């Protein structure tokens, strides 16, 4: 086992709505990413995967609030830190973020180089501007961006260039963990592949130590990440290697999600997921028992009231279900 | 639709604006029922009679008399009959005899009289005061004593008898009172009269109605023109779009009020009825609506549901009515509301320039303002002639804008608090 770059232990965060109601968007999530590894998080929209990404940054502003749990980056626990210290010493340097909509992630009226200067100065106010420019030019060149792009405003760049610029800015300080939140959802397939390739290259070159990929496009995850986690209603329901998760999903929800990509080959790749009927539970009042029970084909009466713990099985695998692994596999085999 | 309405009525801003506007409308409808009559009728002869209740003096002398001995009657009488000059003279005397006047309030009649009793001495001859002035104080003292004594005063009413000689017919004592209900003519003017002697409140209610109608007509004209041009330019596109946008751009830059002034002037005073002014206002303010409708339609033009309708061979009118209009309806309603409020304002500004509707038919808020300014109501203290007008215009436009902000927050959720 490699060195743990990011450890999340029993993290709980919530949104407080306009009407002062609590929405438990991340409810007790634990996992680890090792050095040189990548992890994918999949789930329907609204399952809390994007919130999890925000929560892992350890930097909270309304309406998101921290409740409990630990976030340990390269051995340093950041969950108890004061927000300004997190801002200064963690964000961008230890953990960095590539937002969902790269198109609008850059301030339209600022030159890219000024923004990069602001980012670097936020952590090291004394850094020389010439040095920053050299740094930026180098990273731009590595991502196939012309140096002139630095002197442009975001609006003057094309969609693909904006995406690459965002990657360059996010990784300019060589963060240990890079979180990409659906970095490709706004791009066409060719650009998606390019973005993924670039991120892998950055990791291979050692600029970033680990990656976390968040998407609802499962075919994409299989090609990119070492491990996959499936999230449902604020909790993890299953975790395993990409191979295992795709070919041998255990939890009924993952099973439903993965069914359509059993053969990740040309022709079937773009196939739409078969929809699972029903809607996720209201996270203002999460159910006591299994959160998926209401939509689960195999649910028994006890699923609805007994709390379901995460259960380890095999190596590096976890699932959250009352039924046994073999029992589930047998049910799936009979379908 | 129902759901949208419910959402709209959940917006506190919209509801507040709606309530103010409906209250104004109700007042406009109900008040003429209570107080009917021509709002332009000149009931007063002088200009700017103060707000208050007017009792016919003539009728009052004929009404049955009751006797009251009110303890503060004499003092009140003194208070209103003591002129400012007399008061100033009294203060001058106090100063001359060395009384402490640092915290003296000249409006406090009781205190003034008390001090007068204390300090006035007919035999005193303050230094430097001329004899004529001393005599004046003697007379002042006498009249104060008489008025303050409280009884025995009376006014005689005399009428000529058959020989044409005045003969006392009635004596009015200072303890005589009449019940206003028994006086034949009592007129309450909550907002006084204007420079022509008209009842301001009645005029205001009627003017508000006219101004709102002007705003509505202007809004309808502007919205119809803007909507039609915007739909044509946006949906048909091509050469038609180029032409319409050319015209629209020109009229966006040429200030609307300049056009308004020129057109209104060209029409001439005689032809300028309220409806004509409203239509002219509408004709000069459609450009914003046209531009925004166009850009919205362009973004809708290639949506799936529109393409589907096109493929199904639906007519242009049907596509516009069923596939485009419902999507821009909220926007058009908001633009209409703004047009109404700016139409009311435009009428007022035009009238202030002397280019408003002709003055003989109906009052409008702008005309009332114009009259008040022409007769210097603002410099001679007749606040009732202009302030209610300003307040009404502000309230109408405030309520319309509140509704608009409310709608905006419902339809553009990023602005929501």
């Amino acid at each position: 086992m490699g060195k743990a770059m990011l450890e999340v232990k029993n993290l709980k965060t919530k949104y407080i709505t306009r009407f002062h109601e609590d929405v438990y968007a991340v409810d007790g999530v634990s996992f680890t990413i090792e050095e040189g590894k990548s992890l994918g998080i999949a789930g329907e929209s609204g399952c809390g995967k994007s919130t999890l990404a925000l929560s892992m940054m350890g930097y909270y502003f309304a309406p998101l609030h921290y409740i409990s749990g630990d976030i340990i980056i390269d051995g340093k626990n950041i969950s108890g830190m004061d927000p300004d210290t997190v801002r200064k010493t963690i964000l961008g340097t230890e953990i960095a973020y590539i937002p969902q909509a790269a198109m609008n992630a850059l301030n339209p009226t600022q030159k890219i180089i000024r923004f990069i200067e602001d980012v670097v100065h936020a952590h090291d106010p004394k850094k020389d501007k010439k040095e920053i420019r050299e740094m930026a030019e180098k990273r731009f060149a590595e991502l196939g961006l012309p140096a002139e792009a630095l002197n442009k405003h975001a609006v003057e760049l094309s969609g693909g260039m904006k995406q690459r610029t965002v990657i360059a800015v996010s990784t300019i300080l060589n963060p240990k963990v890079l979180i990409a939140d659906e970095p490709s959802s706004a791009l066409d397939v060719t650009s998606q592949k390019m973005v993924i390739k670039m991120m892998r290259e950055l990791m291979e070159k050692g600029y970033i130590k680990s990656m976390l990929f968040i998407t609802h496009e499962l075919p994409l995850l299989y090609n990119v990440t070492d491990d996959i986690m499936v999230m449902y209603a604020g909790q993890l329901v299953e975790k395993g290697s990409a191979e295992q998760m795709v070919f041998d999903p255990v939890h009924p929800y993952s099973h439903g999600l993965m069914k359509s990509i059993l053969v990740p080959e040309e022709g079937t790749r773009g196939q739409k997921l078969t929809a699972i009927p029903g809607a996720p539970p209201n996270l203002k009042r999460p159910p006591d028992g299994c959160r998926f029970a209401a939509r689960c084909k195999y649910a028994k009466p006890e699923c609805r009231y007994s709390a379901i713990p995460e259960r380890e099985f095999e190596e590096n695998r976890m699932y959250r279900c009352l039924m046994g692994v073999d029992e589930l596999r047998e049910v799936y085999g009979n379908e | 639709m129902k759901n949208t309405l419910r959402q709209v009525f959940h917006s506190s801003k919209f509801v507040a604006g709606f309530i103010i506007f409906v209250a104004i409308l109700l007042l406009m409808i109900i008040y003429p029922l209570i107080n009917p009559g021509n709002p332009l009728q000149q009931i007063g002869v002088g200009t700017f009679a103060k707000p208050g209740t007017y009792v016919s003096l003539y009728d009052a002398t004929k009404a049955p008399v009751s006797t009251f001995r009110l303890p503060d009657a004499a003092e009140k009488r003194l208070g209103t009959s003591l002129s400012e000059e007399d008061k100033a003279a009294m203060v001058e005397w106090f100063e001359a005899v060395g009384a402490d006047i640092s915290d003296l309030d000249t409006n406090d009649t009781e205190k003034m009289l008390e001090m007068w009793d204390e300090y006035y001495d007919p035999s005193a001859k303050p230094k430097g005061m001329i004899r004529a002035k001393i005599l004046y104080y003697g007379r002042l003292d006498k009249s104060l004593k008489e008025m303050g004594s409280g009884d025995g005063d009376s006014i005689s009413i005399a009428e000529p008898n058959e020989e044409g000689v005045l003969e006392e017919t009635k004596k009015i004592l200072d303890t005589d009172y009449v019940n206003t209900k028994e006086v034949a003519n009592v007129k309450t003017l909550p907002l006084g009269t204007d420079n022509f002697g008209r009842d301001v409140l009645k005029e205001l209610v009627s003017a508000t109605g006219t101004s709102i109608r002007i705003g509505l007509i202007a809004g309808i004209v502007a919205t119809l023109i803007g909507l039609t041009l915007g739909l044509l330019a946006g949906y048909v596109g091509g050469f038609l779009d180029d032409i319409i946008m050319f015209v629209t751009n020109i009229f966006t830059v040429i200030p609307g009020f300049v056009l308004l002034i020129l057109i209104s002037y060209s029409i001439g005073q005689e032809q300028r009825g309220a409806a004509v002014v409203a239509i002219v206002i509408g004709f000069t303010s459609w450009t914003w609506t046209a531009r925004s409708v166009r850009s919205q339609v362009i973004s809708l033009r290639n949506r799936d549901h529109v393409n589907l309708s096109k493929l199904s061979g639906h007519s242009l009118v049907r596509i516009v009515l069923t596939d485009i209009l419902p999507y821009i309806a909220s926007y058009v309603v908001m633009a209409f509301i703004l047009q109404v409020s700016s139409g009311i304002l435009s009428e007022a500004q035009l009238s202030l320039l002397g280019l408003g509707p002709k003055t003989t038919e109906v009052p409008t808020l702008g005309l009332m303002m114009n009259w008040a300014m022409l007769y210097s109501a603002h410099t001679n203290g007749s606040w009732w002639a202009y302030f209610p007008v300003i307040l009404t215009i502000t309230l109408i436009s405030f309520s319309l804008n509140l509704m608009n902000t409310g709608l905006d927050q419902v339809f553009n959720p990023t602005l929501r608090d």
Partner: protein
Amino acid sequence: MKGYRKYFGKKLLWFVITFIVAVILNFILPRLMPADPVASITGKLAGGNSDASAVAEIYKRYQKEFGTDLPMIQQFFRFCKNAIHGNFGLSFSQYPRSVSNIIASSIGWTIALQLPAILVGWLLGNILGALAAYIRKGYDKVLLPVALFLGNVPAFGMAVIMLVIFGVYLKIAPISGGYAFDMIPHLSWNFIKSVISHYQLPFWSIVIISIGGQAVGMRSMSIYELNADYVKYSRFLGIKDRKIVGYVFRNAMLPQVTGLAMSIGTMIGGALVAEIIFSYPGLGSTMYSAVTSADYPLISATTLIITIMVLIMTFLLDIIYGFIDPRVKAAQFE
């Protein structure tokens, strides 16, 4: 730079076309008046003169002076030619002063009053709007309705209220004119003092009117920007909130420049009416007296001058805006 020249050229072309249309409208509209203006003027000037042939003589003379005996198109070119030379003919109401002379003596007052007042109002309104958006709680709840309400007080209403409160009751500042009525304009301390004290009320009433609308617009713009993706992204890169607020306000402020360009016509309209209330010796009062005395060459000239002023302002703001906002630059300059 090439892109910029093209942008500039395009804007300039628009400016020229709009200008031509404005001149044409300005020429045609008053001539559409159903009554013969020359006849009505003759009637007015002839007064009690009952000698029909004398009246006809006067009518002929005026017809010649105005050139109404010429065909419309010829009249138009004559109008343009004269206008270029600054010749707008003679004023009727202030005979024998020329229209250009009257305008020359009032335009300075209007520019000196309105330009600073509108700019100060715009700036203050934006600052208040930004504050309201940033602070939100409390201030927003109080400031916004107040600003909305103030923004809805019509320009003339605000002028009258200011006049009554500060001029009539508190007697802080004089209520009418551009300087004391017993003075003759000349360069002296007394005169400048008088001008400044007369400047106060019209200036502040225009400022206050401008604040309301701008503040409300700036607030919505700032809230929109505060929710933009780049704000979140910048935060997660560790940039200080204070710096991000700087980005937001810059971005929210820039469209307000367009807002100013769009509303400058309306604002000047309101301000002209405010001038009338204060009898300020500017174009507004000139136009008012022209309207009340049916001085048709003067009306025509004032509206033309105001149109030109608005056009120039809009043009300049457009140019500035294209220059300072890269979003527009990107869209327009290629």
